[in-house]
């Protein structure tokens, strides 16, 4: 098994309970700009990308449109995005919402702990960008992500082109990583998803409720790409800005 690609990248629907197999055709037969899965936002990661998909990289289909005057400051923008991603977890999925809130607490904490260095890096544009904008450099969590796998060319696996659902997925720069955060006994489709994803080279981890609540250790548990997510970023960007701030040369 391997990750299925189309349009030169991996297209990942997320934020919805299921994606039906009848919607598969949209991925292969339609130009990406026309792919529309009702209720499911999509991200596209270029095949072989070695950089994380960051919070500031994604165009979010906000159900409630942000009002610019309410989002004048970085902390308000971060809170708005956190609430949006929590909504995409669904009404009944408390463990996943706990993960999203735990993750945002952890990345906020990381930025605060590195505040002096990050403030210094803002130097040339201080006033235009705020410390809190560094939060958007963190890898973006895709709640209820549907990962499409396909059989290897010489395989006779019947599991071809089907979606497998992960509680949350990240493209962390090293590859795709999926987390399972719901408690309970894994059976059936969940186990099949874990096995198929692992077989396809996806890094899979399980986190307990305590793991998700611990902002001190959560980023370490997620792995090396999360330990420090700001190197390589010259200036922070906001997904709410029309364009990034140009670095003064």
């Amino acid at each position: 098994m391997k990750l299925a690609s189309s349009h030169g990248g991996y297209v990942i629907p997320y934020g919805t309970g299921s994606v039906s197999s009848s919607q598969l055709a949209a991925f292969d037969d339609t130009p990406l700009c026309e792919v529309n899965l009702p209720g499911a936002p999509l991200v596209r990661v270029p095949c072989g990308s070695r950089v994380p998909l960051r919070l500031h990289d994604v165009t979010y289909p906000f159900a409630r449109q942000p009002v610019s005057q309410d989002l004048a400051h970085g902390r308000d923008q971060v809170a708005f995005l956190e609430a949006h991603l929590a909504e995409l977890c669904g009404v009944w999925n408390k463990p996943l919402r706990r993960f999203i809130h735990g993750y945002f607490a952890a990345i906020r904490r990381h930025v605060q702990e590195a505040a002096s260095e990050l403030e210094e890096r803002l130097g040339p544009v201080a006033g235009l960008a705020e410390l809190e904008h560094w939060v958007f450099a963190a890898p973006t969590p895709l709640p209820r992500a549907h990962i499409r796998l396909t059989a290897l060319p010489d395989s006779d696996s019947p599991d071809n082109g089907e979606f497998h659902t992960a509680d949350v997925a990240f493209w962390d720069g090293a590859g795709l990583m999926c987390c399972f955060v719901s408690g309970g006994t894994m059976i059936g489709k969940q186990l099949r998803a874990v096995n198929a994803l692992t077989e396809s080279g996806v890094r899979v981890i399980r986190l307990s409720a305590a793991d998700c609540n611990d902002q001190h250790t959560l980023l370490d548990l997620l792995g090396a790409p999360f330990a420090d997510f700001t190197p390589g970023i010259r200036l922070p960007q906001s997904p709410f800005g029309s364009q990034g701030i140009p670095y003064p040369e």
Partner: protein
Amino acid sequence: MMSAESKNMRLIAHDTLRGFGNVGEGISLQVAKDGRRILWVAHESAPKNFSGVDVTDPRKPRVVVQTDLPHNTVRSNSLEVAGNLMAVAHQTQTWGEEPAGVAIWDIENPTEPREIGFYDAASPWSRGCHQVWMVDEGWLTCACPTKDFQPREKWDDQPFMMLDLSDPTRPTESCFWWLPGTREGDEAPVPPRHPRFNQGWRCHNTNVYPERMDRAYLGYIDGGVIILDISDKSNPQMVTHWNPNPPNNGFTHTVMPLFDRDLLVVTDECVYDAGEDWPKRHWILDARVETNLVPISSLPMPPVEEFAPRGGRYGGHNVHENRPGPSFRSSDILVSSFFNGGVRVHDISDPYEPKEIAYYVPETPEGSPVGAIQINDIYVDENAIIYAVDRWAGGLYVLEMDI
């Protein structure tokens, strides 16, 4: 005679329990010190008290012990295991008989269980204990009166009780609650009787989970669902009360919280044959606001017109209760018992639209007086192996899901 029916489930073993295949509502799994896995089942009625079945290899269950009741007008019906202790309910056929209460057994050596303690609830107004819930060492809850509890209406005779088992040889009351109005001397009025099926305002299941030791989830028979705040054991308080009876036909059985989804699963028990008390269903309640429970769906079931004529009861009864221990735990998959509807499995990932994903209806057991299977209770272990029991004669069915 009905033959077996199945979808995404298969029978891997069947044992009629040495000819005593009438099993009640008590199934619990012990992992003994020597590694054996012993499934304990309470019999629905005399002469047998309980059986211990070695299910270390679930494909080859083997009865290793079976005990007798002292006489034929007492039943055990319910039991639970925590560590090396087992609690067994004793309910008498009529008020004032003995033994009535909760027996505590030492099962460290599963083939030689020893009764080491007894909570005596016998009184002229008592039938004793119908149900026990013990998922942790040191305490249990049960549907049982104290000796001095005198109900105004005789069917209101099994309130909520918590017993302290720090000394298992001397179980003592640590928390006791009844619905105001049901006890002689209460100021509150007696709650109204169900117009067709009066079964009383009393506890059936009394679930308390280690995750929320401040809450008791009560199926209160004709009284519906009651959630108690038991953080102060000396002064339990009713947090919420949701009662669909009437128009529904009573006998609310189990209230199972799904803590990580803010949902409740509520089961009705069918207690009449041939669909007389239909509908008896399993309900999903929105419990995001604990004080305002909202029913949002019920589990889909086959048509009553098709199943009721098959014989015996058809309708809801119990659900695997996500207890701690060597037990399946899921907030998405429900495994339920539906009498002649067999074992049925539902996916409630979308709780507004539950889906039936598997079932197994065993063939009519030999010797069954009702002419159909009557799956009374189920237990699912941590490997998703289902243990289901027949109420009359069929004994133990071991099932494997493919979902």
